[in-house]
Structure formats: C-alpha cells, structure tokens
C-alpha cells in the first residue's frame, strides 16, 4: 500500500478545501470499501480526509413528508430509523440485506453510493479492466461473468453496481446533495449514475472535488407498501445475483402506482420504467406482472453464463408484486 497522509475534517468546507488542494486525496467514510481497494492496490491515495465526524449524521423529516438523510449516517442507523422503516420499509430492508452487522455499523450513506463494483477483474491488478485502466480491455466478456450485468451494458464493461441501498433509493426518486468549493448542487439518482458507454471508469456525474452531503427522499405514500428482495448464492452476507425494490398501490384490483428498481443487473441501480408503464392502470394480476417484467427485460443482453438472470428477474418481479398485492389486501 502506498504511504498516505491523514486529516480529520470537522466541517464540510474544510473537507472540500482539503480535497481541492490535493488531486490524489480521497474522502474516508467507513472505509469498508476504500481500505479494501487500497490493500489490493486499486486505490492509491496520497491523502485520506476522514469525513466521519462531519455534522452530517442526521435523518430528518422534510416539510413535504419526505426524508433527508445525512451522508455520514451509518447503514445501521439508517436501517434502524423508525421513519425509514415506517415510510420506506424497502429502504430499511435493502440496507439490512447488505454486508454484515459489523460492516453496516462502519459504512456510511455517502460511501455506499460511491462503492465500487466487486467484479473480480476490477480488483485483480494482473488483469486488464476498462474501469480500472481505461482502454485496457474487459476480460469478463469472455471470462468469468456469471454475476455480471444484463441491462444497459456496453462492449467496454459488464460489471454491476454492488449497492443494495442505492436500488431502493432509485425506486424512491432520491436526490443526492453535494458541496463543492464553489457551490452546493443536487443530482437526481437517475442522473447521478452515468450509463457505461465508452467510459466505464466514470461512474457518476458528481463534479470533481465534490463531497456528498446527503440524500433526500421525496414524499412517496406508495412506499409504505414496499419490499426489497435479494437473491444471492448463500443465505446471507453475500452480494446479490439479482434484487428488486418494489412499491405498489392497488385500488379495486387496479394498479394505481408502482415503483420498480433492480439491483445486480446493471452498472447502476436500474429503475424499471418500462415495466412501471405497463403496470399503471392494469389489473393487479400475475399475468400483468409477468407482462411488465417482460417489457423491461426485452432489452436484456445476456452473456453465455448470465442468461439465468433474465428468468430470475422475471420471477422476482412477479413474486414481489404478488406479495405486495396480498399485503395490501390484508
């Protein structure tokens, strides 16, 4: 590991100023991903700016009945918060589905949004990787890719985004706030994560030198009936091979509102707007849920070893929407 300096920041402007002064500096939150990548040699910062003690650790109701979540709130505190559990249960479930109790105590919301893919080629310095070394190639296309993306991929990268939390945030139209040396800014989560295209190494639209300060969830009554379901290769403590955050409002057996976002199928949390459009106004039936799932998955491009994800996601959509319909009927 490269030697590095360490500074602890106590206010946002101080943290941003420190980052601006050193192009090789990185913010340190919980460190659960960054330190791992530093040990692997993927990240080689010259300076770590510890932002864990910034006054950004609150979860508050907004005036319109949404939630404002500070960037240094830990995963544990987010998932345990009564208003998160009451108003956006799928978000609490998504956070609880990720990592372990130890890691959730350390990890922060800001870091969770910016965590890197767990594609094995990305962390293996002996292999090419367009995300780590732009233009070097993507061995996953012809190699180990059974857990790689099927939606929104490019010939340059098929890695998936690993966050569970971000999938629920995508379903609920989260807005990410940040601060730069010049001014504060905001990005809706749809614009925050960039398509892969020819630049898999550029993952977000966050301006250079910016610090994420928080996430705002708009009011969403539909979220009260929401679920996160995650499929993985063992019962617990593993990254998803497919996941879904879903919210559903059914009245008189007709779908009034629906939110669907998928995890572990794309380079970013995947909001399933095509499926949502099919569902609005349609009967809340297994047939309609299947048709909606197919509408989204029509664009899927599977590789030889990950075609099972198309079936998996189809079945997840039908199962979770069916469960939410039954829950609403109770």
């Amino acid at each position, binding site marked *: *590991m490269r*030697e*590095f*300096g*360490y*500074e*602890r920041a106590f206010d946002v402007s101080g943290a941003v100023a420190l980052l601006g002064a*050193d192009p090789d500096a990185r913010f*340190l939150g*919980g*460190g*659960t991903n960054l*330190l*791992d990548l530093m*040990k692997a040699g993927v990240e080689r910062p*010259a*300076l*770590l700016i*510890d932002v*864990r003690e910034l006054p950004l650790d609150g979860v508050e109701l907004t005036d319109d009945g949404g939630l404002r979540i500070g960037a240094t709130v830990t995963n*544990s505190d987010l*998932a*345990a918060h*009564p208003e998160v*559990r*009451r108003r956006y*249960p799928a978000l*609490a*479930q998504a956070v*609880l*589905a990720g*990592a*372990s*109790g*130890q*890691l959730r*105590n*350390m990890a922060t919301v800001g870091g969770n949004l910016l965590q890197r893919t767990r594609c094995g080629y990305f962390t293996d310095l002996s292999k090419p990787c367009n995300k780590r070394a732009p233009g070097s190639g993507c061995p996953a296309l012809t190699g180990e890719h059974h857990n790689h993306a099927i939606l929104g991929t490019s010939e340059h990268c098929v890695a998936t985004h690993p966050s569970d939390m971000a999938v629920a945030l995508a379903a609920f139209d989260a807005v990410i706030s940040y601060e730069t040396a010049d001014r504060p800014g905001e990005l809706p989560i749809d614009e925050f994560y960039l398509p892969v295209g020819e630049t898999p190494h550029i993952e977000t639209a966050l301006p250079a030198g910016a610090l994420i300060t928080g996430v705002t969830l708009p009011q969403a009554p539909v979220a009260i009936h929401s679920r996160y379901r*995650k499929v993985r290769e063992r*019962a*617990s*403590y593993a990254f998803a091979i497919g996941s879904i955050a879903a919210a559903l409002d059914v009245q008189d057996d007709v779908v009034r509102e629906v939110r669907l976002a998928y995890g572990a199928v794309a380079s970013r949390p995947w909001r399933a707007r095509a499926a949502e459009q099919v569902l609005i106004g349609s009967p809340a039936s297994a047939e309609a849920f299947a048709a909606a799932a197919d509408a989204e998955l029509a664009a899927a491009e599977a590789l030889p070893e990950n075609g099972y994800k198309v079936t998996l996601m189809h079945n997840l959509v039908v199962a979770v929407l069916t469960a939410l319909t039954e829950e609403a009927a109770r």
Partner: protein
Amino acid sequence: MAPSTSSAITLNINGEKYTLPVDHRTTLLDALREQLDLTGTKKGCDQGQCGACTVLLDGRRAVSCLQLAVAAEGRAITTIEGVADGERLHPVQQAFLDLDGYQCGYCTPGQICSALAVIEEHAAGWPSAVTDDVRPDAGVPALTAEEIRERMSGNLCRCGAYVSIVQAVAQAAEAAGAEVKEAAL
C-alpha cells in the same frame, strides 16, 4: 509539501489509554496485535469478510481489519481482553464455554464481541434481514435461530460450530432479558 505519513496517536482501549506511533497504513487490528500485544483479536481474512477481528467501537461491533488505527483515535475501543470483569467471565463468554460454542477457538473472540453487540442491537429494537415486517409498529422480533444466524452471519467459523454458537447466543440473550424462541434449530 507532502503530508506526513505517520502520527503519534492515543487509543482508548478497554478503558486504558495507549500512546503509540503509527504509520497511517496501520489497521486497528495490526496496531492491537503487533504494537500493543493485545493478541486476543484475531486476524482471519484481513478483508472484512470473516469477522475474526471484530471489536467494539463506541459500543458497536466493527471489523478492525478495515479500520485504520489513526481513524480510531478518540473512540472507545473494546477488545475481547476487556469483556470479562476481572476473573469473572461475561455471561456471553460463559455461555460459549457452557455450550461448547467453538472448536479450535480462533474465531471465538470475534464471535463473542459480535454476540455482545447482537444482544444490544436486538434490545434496541433493530430489525434484521430476516425480520418479516420491519415497520416499527410490528415490534421487535423474537430471537429465533433464524434471527440469530442472520445477525451473526458476519462471523465465520471454519470448524462449523454454528449449532452451538447459536445456542450460546440464545442462552446469553435470554439471560439478558431478550425474548428467545425456537432457538434450538
């Protein structure tokens, strides 16, 4: 000017203050074991995946292999050496002993630190990934074997002593006042 890559820090461990020089690359795990001779905390994977190095930071469990020592300054650190009350074992330690919650013992300090926190988290009303209804009105779930296994899933045991570990956690939790059900699975 290049920033300094080392610092003299003071760590608060088990209620005692330790002042030591650290290269910033030093993890809390390595500072404990290699510099402070507190070798109860074990190094397993060194990648945050096995839980052998679990300690408590400000009362909450964390993996010390992904925690920089320099960033732990100012926090209350509890290691396995600080869990017992003198010669008297903590009830969680006693439960692991009574119920054979280990075989080789290497993962045990991490298992015990994690179990201490699991009991606290449950008492605080935290749901888990297997809690069917996470909404606060649904109340706190009873600690079933399924709940304990999920909550302890960040601690691996290569000997496979899980059956006894689950029972030890259940016994200690029940003694601490938790509602425990169907824990003998």
